[in-house]
């Protein structure tokens, strides 16, 4: 057991999984000698050699495309895209191939790869470094989408992603890479994909969130004297609808906190599922607290753009007082 931040937890689980399975191969831009721009792979090349921890050319199509061929060959590529905003060139390979190889060949070939990438805003970064575009991936059948919220979660979920037989998009909320520290067991463990986590039980309202927004949601709730049931979605695809529906049926009220823009964010899907399965339990309309439908600004206005504590408190109050 040791106290770790998320960067350390990611590095620690990559190390453990490489030790556990010699077919796990890491590559991406600057991940070897430099240890990655956020240091999530620091020291791993030294430990496992240049054959397994590889500085790749600066080429996102190539990184994702080669991972498909390597995974089909029986290895376990865990590739890093330096920032999620640079993954778009590689989307064709994810959408048209990684997600479809199993179906296209009726199971003869599979694509057990992981694409890890830091995502989301809040670190005063450059343009294209701050967006939350998880919906792009969730919309593609065949891909799994995982977003950890804490160091403990990151370790268990990434271990599962690496061992998963299908392609997994693992989005690391870089805003909380170093701002949350918690005890992380040194023993290997996994957290199953496709299961939400009830962070705390409560009876007044269900608050659903994921990634960095969990931290800010908890901080907001600490300032409110209410009994909120908080759900960390963890795996956005496949989505554990049952945990959410059961909770909403119990509390009768729900708020979703999402860093991404409003339209067609994952909150939209959660609301649709609540409408389908728990509408008659609702005491108030479901509210989503999101970023507006505008381009992510450069960092002077970043804090205005991101949903913050005040927005969360206001939104929850509105639903409670409806």
């Amino acid at each position, binding site marked *: 057991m040791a106290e770790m931040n998320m960067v350390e937890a990611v590095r620690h689980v990559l190390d453990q999984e490489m030790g556990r399975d010699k077919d796990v*191969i890491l590559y991406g831009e600057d991940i070897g000698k430099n240890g990655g721009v956020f240091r999530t792979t620091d020291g791993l090349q030294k430990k496992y050699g240049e*054959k*397994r921890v590889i500085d*790749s*050319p600066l*080429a996102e*199509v*190539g990184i*994702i*495309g*080669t*991972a*498909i*061929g*390597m*995974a*089909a*060959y*029986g*290895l376990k*590529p865990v590739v890093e895209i330096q920032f999620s905003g640079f993954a778009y*060139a590689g989307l*064709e*390979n994810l959408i*048209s*191939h990684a997600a479809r*190889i*199993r*179906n*296209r*060949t*009726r*199971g*003869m*070939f*599979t694509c057990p790869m992981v694409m890890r990438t830091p995502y989301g805003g809040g670190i005063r970064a450059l343009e294209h470094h701050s967006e939350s575009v998880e919906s792009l991936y969730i919309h593609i*059948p*065949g891909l*799994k989408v995982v977003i950890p919220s804490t160091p403990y979660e990151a370790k268990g979920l990434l271990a599962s992603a690496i061992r*998963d*037989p*299908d392609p997994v998009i693992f989005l690391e909320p870089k805003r909380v890479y170093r701002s949350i520290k918690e005890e992380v067991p040194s023993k290997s463990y996994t957290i199953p994909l*496709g299961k939400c986590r009830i962070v705390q039980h409560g009876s007044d309202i269900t608050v659903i969130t994921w990634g960095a927004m969990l931290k800010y949601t908890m901080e907001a709730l600490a300032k409110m004297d209410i009994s909120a049931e908080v759900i960390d979605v963890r795996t956005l695809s*496949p*989505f554990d*609808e*049952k945990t959410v529906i059961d909770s909403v049926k119990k509390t009768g009220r729900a708020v979703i906190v999402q860093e991404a823009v409003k339209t067609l964010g994952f909150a939209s899907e959660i609301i649709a599922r609540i409408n389908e399965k728990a509408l008659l339990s609702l005491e108030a309309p479901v509210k989503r607290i999101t970023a507006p439908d505008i381009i992510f600004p450069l960092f002077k206005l970043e804090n205005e753009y991101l949903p913050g504590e005040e927005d969360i408190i206001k939104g929850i109050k509105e639903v409670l007082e409806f």
Partner: protein
Amino acid sequence: MDEKGEVDGKLMPKFSSKQIKDFYESMYILRAFDKKAVSLQRQGRLGTYPQITGMEATQVGTALALQKADWMFPSFRESGAMIARGIPMSKILLYWGGDERGSQFAKDQFTFPISIPVGSQTTHAVGTAWGMKIKGHKKASLVYFGDGATSRGDFHEAMNFASVMKAPCVFICNNNQFAISTRPDKETASETFAQKAIAYGMEGVKVDGNDVFGVYKATQDALKKAYSGKGPTLIECYTYRMLDHTTSDDASRYRSKKEVDEWAKKDPIDRLRKYMEKKKLWTKDYEGKLYNKVQKMIEKEVEKMENITPPDVKDIFKYTYAEMDDELKEQMSKYG
């Protein structure tokens, strides 16, 4: 080997009579298969189908040079290379008949499914080759793409990756003079496609894609190089697409009959027949027997394709992920 079936003795590899007959028969099968597939499409028994006539030497010469354990990455125009490699014709027809089971090849055939987005398969082939290298396996991957694909970023990233990683990958550029209607001079300002290799620190070779001996030799050399750890090679096979781009295309809109007739004189099968005749490996009797054998073989494969049980709609659900979640199970239940 030139159009008259004459070979340059100094360059000619040693082939057994059996090998030469294999080349001929493989190409012969592909020409007959192509004809049959187009006719099936015209009768509504197949969907859109991309023809291969004129490119048989490129497809056969490359496919037969592969070892069994090597991996093949076809573009959508390599039905012929796949058949030459041993993929059943019934599977190929099944695929073009709109059925995913047509890409469910046996595991030990090491042939990737057809990739429709042009050139996107190049990076996959490099990944597999790189994997072979990491695992220390003395094998190679071979990837096909057309002249048009070399304009795409995928091709360039794949070439660069392969060279940097010294991946055992053979790139086959099927330069058939057309990306649907667009000519090579509208795709590139390079004099040849082969020379693109130079920029990546890779060897580039240009061969007459209608000369099965030349194609086979170039591929075999590239494969040997790959097995021995010396990295990738780009081979441009200079050939001609004699028919339309697909059964949905009308090539008369963008090329003349005269041009096609000129290329017909360079036909890959005719020239091998001329060579074999001189070597007394071909007779009318042999051809007659071959014709009957191939027709029967193709009919049997068509029958096999058409008699397969209809696909189960549930398969679409079953193969999206290794396991279905509750939501997918619920969605599937609506299909009975």
